[in-house]
């Protein structure tokens, strides 16, 4: 795999630096850095800080953390490696980058775990202090890779990170342990220097973080400074890089992960619908952070309940929805598998409910910290009986915000459960988010029923709105509308129990029609030259790598069109027409072809499924290679 296939090639322009006149300054258009170390080394924090500095500078960014599966795997082992990748550029980018240009390896395990993904020529900054016999042995290095020629393809920068940090903090009045711990700040300082990052926000952050222990504020600042100075003064680093700000739409930005954005989207949906949000959830990786985040926002009237299990969680959310709340439940695949029976009840009751599935690799417990898109079929079909509902998926971390609002909109407007299919990749990845202004957000208010709905003064709980086909949302507490609902088949209009065959036929078809007629926007096609014969159709988190691959192809003169589905049920009305406009439709998915099956069945086109199911997102390069082949050879 060559870095040149990652999208537009990294462009360099050498100039004389201004900030550090002694060093050469090169201009780059994009960089991918991966910070890797032991779980205890603070790599997530380091990556976060670097990202934040980079954001301040105005680059476009995309990040991806990679947590170990264990809470704390034994120090120095391969399973204990934690890493954080950040991709930043002077133009808008779509993925966290396929392969790092720079690897920061805090120990031998971090080097070994990540080396295979490094393209030749990449920079490696290693913490030599950790390359001890013992640590090398732990990961099965017979000799130090720093001493043999196994790294000859790379530009290796050996740095005694730990000892230099400890040295720099000799007089800081902190314990040796605390001093050693600050080595990630040394690394951050060095990288911040190398890439000319503004560091004020990091210093402020340290002040906040260690507010209660001023000596640690000082120590960490000092470590950061030492790292910066090391870059500036030693001869080990001769070049400094700059990546100019990207041209981004004007506005205020923040960097945000998918799970954060999704949480904020739910809060926003509560505000814009004027409904109290009730989240019933049971912790599960990678969805737990939504529960954590929402539990902080009680001031918006958000109630979070950690239930005894996933069934209780959705049950409570449904009970709250019945009472007039915006009921939400968040989970991952195994949890959705447990919720099927209750979702089916919600479908029969025709109550609004948002079900968030942050997908992870399955089946069974699978690989909880890895990503996958293999729950689409379950979302669409994983219930007994004909039990249709709406399904939508966000395409990027920040898009989770809007997807959550859209899910809530459909739920409350159409009185239906909606499954929102996020996944580990968007949930933990981050990108800059152009903050919307609150009043631009859609108005989600829907009226509760307050009075009888027939000419003769009766209340029929299943009399539908002619437009939306929604039944009235008549919440307990409303005088005069007392009624009973349940999971047995209901007579049209009255909602009474009915075993009448014709009524059942009618109700089954009506429930399907309710979903089919939900108004969803048409799907857009990106085909700038309008000359593509091949269309790539995707959904969910594959948006980034598909988009990057398409751009790269187009830049190479190979026309290709991209369409991306946010709505999986119902599908956009224009989709058939869009698909018909191309000779070939390719559907890349992180599953064995679930959307492809749907599309083939519905539109009878010979859509080609391209599947990767490794727990990792597609790289742009993989897709570019595959699509190049399709475009060239049909």
């Amino acid at each position: 795999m060559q870095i040149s296939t990652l999208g537009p090639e990294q462009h360099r322009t050498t100039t004389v630096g201004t900030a550090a006149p002694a060093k050469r300054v090169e201009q780059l258009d994009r960089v991918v850095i991966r910070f890797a170390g032991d779980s205890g080394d603070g790599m997530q924090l380091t990556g976060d800080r670097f990202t934040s500095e980079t954001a301040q500078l105005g680059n476009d960014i995309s990040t991806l953390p990679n947590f170990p599966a264990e809470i704390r795997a034994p120090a120095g082992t391969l399973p204990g490696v934690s890493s954080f990748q950040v991709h930043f550029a002077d133009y808008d980018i779509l993925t966290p980058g396929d392969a790092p240009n720079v690897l920061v390896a805090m120990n031998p395990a971090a080097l070994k775990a990540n080396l295979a993904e490094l393209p030749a020529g990449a920079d490696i900054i290693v913490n030599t202090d950790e390359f001890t016999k013992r640590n090398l042995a732990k990961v099965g290095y017979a000799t130090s890779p720093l001493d043999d020629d196994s790294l000859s393809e790379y530009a290796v920068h050996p740095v005694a990170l730990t000892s230099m940090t400890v040295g720099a903090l000799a007089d800081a009045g902190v314990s040796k342990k605390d001093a050693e711990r600050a080595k990630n700040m040394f690394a951050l300082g060095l990288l911040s220097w190398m890439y000319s990052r503004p560091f004020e926000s990091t210093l402020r952050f340290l002040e906040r973080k260690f507010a209660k222990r001023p000596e640690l504020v000082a120590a960490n600042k000092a470590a950061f400074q030492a790292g910066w100075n090391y870059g500036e003064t030693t001869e080990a680093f001769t070049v400094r890089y700059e990546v100019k700000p990207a041209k981004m739409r004007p506005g205020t930005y923040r960097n945000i992960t998918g799970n954060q954005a999704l949480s904020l989207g739910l809060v926003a949906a509560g505000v814009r619908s004027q409904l109290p949000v009730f989240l019933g959830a049971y912790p599960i990786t990678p969805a737990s952070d939504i529960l954590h985040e929402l539990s902080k926002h009680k001031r918006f009237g958000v109630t979070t309940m950690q239930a005894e299990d996933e069934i209780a969680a959705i049950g409570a959310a449904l009970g709250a929805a019945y009472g007039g709340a915006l009921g939400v439940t968040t989970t991952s695949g195994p949890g959705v598998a447990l919720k099927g029976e209750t979702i089916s009840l919600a479908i029969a009751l025709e109550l609004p409910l948002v079900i968030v599935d942050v997908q992870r690799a399955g089946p069974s417990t699978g690989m909880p910290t890895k990503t996958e898109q293999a729950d689409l079929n379950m979302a669409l079909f994983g219930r007994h009986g004909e039990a249709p509902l709406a399904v939508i998926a966000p395409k990027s971390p920040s898009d989770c915000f809007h997807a959550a609002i859209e899910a809530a909109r459909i739920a409350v407007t159409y009185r239906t459960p909606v499954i929102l299919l996020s996944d580990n990749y968007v949930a933990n990845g981050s990108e800059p988010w152009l903050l919307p202004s609150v009043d631009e957000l859609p108005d989600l208010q829907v009226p509760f029923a307050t009075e009888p709905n027939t000419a003769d003064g009766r209340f029929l709980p299943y009399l539908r709105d002619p437009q939306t086909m929604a039944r009235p949302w008549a919440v307990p507490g409303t005088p005069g509308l007392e009624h009973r609902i349940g999971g047995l088949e209901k007579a049209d209009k009255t909602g009474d129990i009915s075993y009448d065959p014709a009524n059942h036929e009618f109700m089954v078809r009506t429930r399907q029609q309710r979903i089919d007629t939900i108004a969803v926007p048409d799907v857009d096609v990106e085909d700038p030259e309008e000359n593509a014969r091949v269309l790539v159709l995707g959904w969910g988190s594959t948006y980034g790598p598909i988009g990057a691959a398409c751009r790269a192809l187009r830049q190479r003169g190979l026309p290709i069109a991209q369409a991306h589905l946010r709505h999986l049920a119902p599908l956009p009305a224009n989709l058939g027409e869009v698909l018909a406009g191309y000779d070939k439709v390719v559907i890349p998915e992180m599953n064995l072809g679930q959307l492809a099956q749907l599309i083939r069945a519905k539109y009878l086109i010979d859509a080609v499924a391209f599947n990767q199911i490794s727990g990792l997102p597609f790289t742009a390069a993989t897709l570019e290679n595959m699509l190049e082949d399709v475009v060239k050879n049909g």
Partner: protein
Amino acid sequence: MANPVELKLTAKDFKSDQEVRWCPGCGDYSILAAMQRFMPELGIPRHNIVFVSGIGCSSRFPYYMNTYGMHSIHGRAPAIATGLSASRPDLSVWVVTGDGDALSIGGNHLIHALRRNVNLKILLFNNRIYGLTKGQYSPTSEIGKITKSTPAGSADSPFNPLSLALGAEATFVARTIDSDAKHLQSVLRAAATHQGSAFVEIYQNCNIFNDGAFELIKDPSTRDEHLIRLEQGQPITFGTDARYSVVHPEGSFGLKVQEGGTPLIHDATVDDPAYAFALSRLSGSDLTTTPIGVFRNVHRPSYDEIVRKQVHDAKTQATGTPEQMLGELLNTGDTWTIL
């Protein structure tokens, strides 16, 4: 709460327009009638009352009450009702469930609702059988019971629902019988005024699949020798002329029934659940000494109360309109501006 007199409700007001469809002679009828007669007493308008049930014969109950109601799915009523109760303090939420619904498939939700002390009135219609599915044994059936699914006799010891509830930290635990409307209503009354979870076991006759299960304590000819009526502050005696006493032998943790002796004085408000637990062990599957009434009635803040207080406190401390707060929330953390 509104004044009961003002509402001028009668039992009839609580009858829905649905035809009642239990088997003729089913104990559920008596419970329904007792409930409909009791409801006006509550002084709560019909629209502020909700019955949530699972699945089972007993769980048809909500359809027959002219209040709000949800006939949900098997075993999940406590969970659904928890969400409703926690988010709607203005409602009076009742759960109706069966021995299979509550103790078999729904056991986990039940014990968690009790430990949380959610403000629910949970009525378990215990007929010691699966009625709706036509006669399999239930978690309260006697061991060795021969049913459709256990032709050689069931192999598992039953739960004692009250012991289980007490083990799950229930604050209010009671038992009553379908056929004794007056007693039933007295227990409903006590349950209704309890803040938090009130767990009420109602012995209910299924005349089709387990007829006469509770005959020993219903039949006037045997009843008095076996049924122990608990009355707050009263000595626990029973039998003709209070012949039998429930006594607490010295040094023992359990209770004993004997002729004469110093009867224990019943006090449901004792904080240590060990007392109510001991009381709950008096009655086994054979019903020979079966207490009814309120076993335990103590105060602990309800889950709903605490959760709502947290939300309320957070709201009170907040400043600005929700829109303003949302704007601020979105702008939290490191932001930057492109002009």
